[in-house]
């Protein structure tokens, strides 16, 4: 059964939001959904670029207040 997980990477500089997402993606199962929270505006471009290149699914991307919510699904 697939699961959903929230990764709070707000206010972090190293290893940073995308590196956090990659860490949790390695631990996730195919079909799992991960929601990355980030206060770094660059994340809104960085995450879709990696997701598209590696071949996972970008589910949604929105900014709520100062926090980006980027939802992705592991597909392989």
């Amino acid at each position, binding site marked *: 059964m697939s699961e959903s997980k929230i990764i709070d990477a707000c206010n972090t*500089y*190293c290893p940073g939001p995308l590196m956090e997402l990659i860490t949790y993606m390695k631990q996730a199962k195919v079909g799992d959904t991960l929601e990355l929270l980030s206060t770094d505006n660059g994340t809104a471009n960085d995450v879709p670029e990696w997701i598209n290149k590696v071949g996972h699914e970008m589910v949604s991307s929105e900014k709520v207040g100062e926090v980006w919510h980027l939802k992705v699904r592991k597909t392989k």
Partner: protein
Amino acid sequence: MRILVVGGGTGGTIVANNLARRLAGEIRARKARITMLSASDRHMYQPGLLYVAFGQMMPDELYRDQASLLETCIDFHVDPVEQFQLDQNQVRTKSGRIHEYDVLVIATGSRIVPEEIPGLAEGAETFYTEESAVKMFKSLREFQGGKLAIVVGVPHKCPIAPVEVTFALHDYFKARGIRDKVEMKYHYPINRIHSIENVAKWAKPEFDRIGVEYETLFNVKEVDVKNKIVKSEEGTETEYDLLISIPAHRGMEVIEKDKLGVGGWIPTDRHQLTMEGHDNVYVLGDTTNLPVSKTGSAAHFEAEVVAENIASIMKIGAPVREYDGKVYCFIEAGHDRATYAMFNYKNPPDLKPPNKSMHWFKMSYNQMYWTSVRGLL
């Protein structure tokens, strides 16, 4: 109060020594007791492994007897924990002994897991253990030129290591007079050459200047050892003659086995450093799942907060400090220059140009560490 510290690395040693001083009166009055359980009777200065890989330090320079680093009132046992029984406030060790506690500090660190990537353990050199650092030095010594690839696993300890080893490799081959025979290519998991934006901005023109090619969004999928090709999750591949790896890490096996945290990383409150759901359990250093660097420096600053709070809880019944995410990392920019990155949850690192003074400060710190880990610096 029975305080049990599990792990004798940087974080565990600093927290135990700091507590021993803060609670000296309570310990003398037998109102407090500090016990440390560790897997080894030796303490390794892990950043020194990078120097071992380049023949600049000998392995025996990295070690001190753990007991010699601890305040004498700390009850130290070489007897690693095999089972955490948090619901009963006790742990069971390898010897079969049960240790009960009122407050538990978990600082068990992390380990490399190159075996999780097919071919990586056999095909790549690394420097994250004494044995591998010595082996890497011997490989570098024999290397006469060709394609050298540097790859980076996620997550990894010491986030600065990828750029440090790259600059060190450049200087090493230059000193041997064969730099023009070595094609260096650096690969990094995200879409810039370092996770810290300012480090990436500084390192990119430096790589261009010294002739290091780079590929970003490269997460190692497998190594074809026979044909000497490293392949990425993103579908690209690189040929190599010598492969240098910053391997991915996991927390210690006992953490995963006892289901304290996925990947061996324990869910931890980012300010109080308590384990989620367990107010009397503190987590330090690499063992946390915090989105901060896995470095001795983070463990050091976290240890100071934890020690101060455990002591204040005993003295006044409340914690007095919060961890602000502070990390300070030296960055060696080759064999004779260095800079540093300092940051916390609110302030990004502001990188200064590398200079010789900072390199010599780092050289001094390699010795000062032993004062630091005793909790004196």
